[in-house]
């Protein structure tokens, strides 16, 4: 417990980590801002602007010409012989210029949460990597071992601290994002939320926090083994930018083992992978092959991957000489 407190104090004092945590909150603010801006209700000014556009377009020569053509031959334009229907079909309406989605939290949960958690996961990997990478770089790990020579304890304290910080960060950002969205929804909408929504949202948040904690642990485990932050950042970029793309292209059968698919299955409580055939000739043969992945599949996947990483990291730290 004492070592854990030391590691938490160490993390709190690291400026780079605090910048990353602040970045996570900023990211949350960007998500909230973008979501609320996209779903903002129609204001009087928006309505007035839309009406101006309607008038402008209604009075435009092209619209008037079309209207006259319709009135001459309504059947061609409206499918009826009623010329009065032309105005309805040809002239612009206000709602054409107010094409804005309505804020609907249950519809947003899936996409918004996935994007948010994946970004937070990347930040957590960087936190885990930079925390221990800086210690290797400064050589302070050796100094610490002169005060606590039980390496597994030191390793475990650092791992626990990173997991706690990453999970707490994710939970806080997720909560703030959703509180903001729900507050806006309460102001903008008279409708209540469907039953079970808050439960689903809470479970998504909990799974997100766990995912982000595993991200932090993965960054820590690899950096602890290779002793360089840059290597971990390079591996992460290489895998996410090139690795998955190459695997998808050449080995479609490994789809279910890709991090992204398992991440989606974990965060969304299930995910269906669709693999389209390379060559097909009719509707049936062109149908994608569907692989359903459940929460348990993703849990086993991340448990095994993270467990293996952590075990290797602990073994290497326990065995190798410390400079």
């Amino acid at each position: 417990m004492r070592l854990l407190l030391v590691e938490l104090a160490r993390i709190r004092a690291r400026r780079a980590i605090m910048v990353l945590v602040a970045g996570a909150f900023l990211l949350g603010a960007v998500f909230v801002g973008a979501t609320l801006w996209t779903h903002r209700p129609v204001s009087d000014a928006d309505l007035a602007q839309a009406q101006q556009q309607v008038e402008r377009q209604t009075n435009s020569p092209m619209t008037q010409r079309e209207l006259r053509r319709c009135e001459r031959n309504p059947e061609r334009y409206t499918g009826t012989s009623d010329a009065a229907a032309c105005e309805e079909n040809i002239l612009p309406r206000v709602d054409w210029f107010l094409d804005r989605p309505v804020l609907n939290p249950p519809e947003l949960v899936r996409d918004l949460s996935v994007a948010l958690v994946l970004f937070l996961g990347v930040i957590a990997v960087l936190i885990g990597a930079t925390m221990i990478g800086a210690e290797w770089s400064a050589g302070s790990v050796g100094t610490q071992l002169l005060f606590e020579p039980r390496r597994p304890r030191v390793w475990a304290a650092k791992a626990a601290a990173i997991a706690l910080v990453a999970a707490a960060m994710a939970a806080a950002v997720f909560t703030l994002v959703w509180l903001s969205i729900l507050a806006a929804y309460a102001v903008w909408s008279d409708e209540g939320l469907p039953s079970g929504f808050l439960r689903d949202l809470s479970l998504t948040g909990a799974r997100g926090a766990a995912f982000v904690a595993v991200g932090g642990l993965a960054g820590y485990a690899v950096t602890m083994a290779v002793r360089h932050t840059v290597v971990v950042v390079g591996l992460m970029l290489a895998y996410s930018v090139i690795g998955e793309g190459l695997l998808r292209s050449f080995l479609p059968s490994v789809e279910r083992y890709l991090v992204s698919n398992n991440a989606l299955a974990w965060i969304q409580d299930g995910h269906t992978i669709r693999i389209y055939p390379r060559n097909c000739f009719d509707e049936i043969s062109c149908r994608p092959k569907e692989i359903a992945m459940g929460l348990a599949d993703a849990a086993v996947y991340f448990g095994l991957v993270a467990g293996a990483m952590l075990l290797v990291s602990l073994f290497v730290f326990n065995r190798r000489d410390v400079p």
Partner: protein
Amino acid sequence: MTDLVIETTDLRKEYRNRRGRFVAVKGLSLQVPHGGVHGFLGPNGSGKTTTIRMLLGLARASGGEMRLFGKEVPRLLPEIMGRIGAIVEQPKFMPGFTGRRNLSLLATTLGQDGRKVDEVIETVGLKGRDKDRYRGYSLGMKQRLAIAGALLKSPDLLILDEPTNGLDPAGIREIRETIRTLGESGVTVLLSSHILAEVQQVCDAVSIIGHGALLASGPVREVIGTRASGAVRLGLADLAAGAAALEAAGYDLRRDLDHLVVETTADPATLTELLAGTGLYVNELTPVRADLETVFLELTADDAGGPL
């Protein structure tokens, strides 16, 4: 119960790399008794730091045995680490933290409060600069912080690897006095230093290693005594005539600037009598005393690393 604070038996450390195998420590058997300051000398690459790192659990031994306070290490190191303060090579702390924060984190690891931190900061003379970031410290201040860290434990054994590196003359003197005081107070100090005069001044005993093996060990006076030459330095008005007379009498000698150095085990009076008999009168006669540097250079003459 043993009186030995540090004991290694046939200690061995090998490194393997792409170019092959390199033996850094080759069957080192070292004994450091309780109390006093024990010098640990050897040329660069002789295995001093590797030995210290193995004793402290930072490096894994390839063979042999190690004991600290009679306890087998590294297996039982956690039981005794609280009694050992150490500085290994350069001080290594988090550069973005203040000196005080670096010490506080270590003190918390030990379950100590801030008072001990204040005390050691005062002891090493860092008060007033303890809230500056470590990266802004001079090498001397970093060294002082490392010593403060080592003193946090109130150690029974202090292992210091080049503790005066980067210190100014006043700082070197202070640290030397601190080491001396600690040695006299019952703390066992293992001092690895490349300043041989310092080791001779501060240490009660010394171990000299070369090529990863022990070359000499014992009280400083004894180690120097084993290599005492018995030579005398002569001052004469006419060195050439004096040299001719002594060579004719069968003495081995060499010219040392405006003196003659005569290797002899005979009574110096015999020399003065011989020279006076030829009308040459000695104006200076001093025994040539071996010092630690001479002994060290003699012992490690064929060490690949050369002198420190």
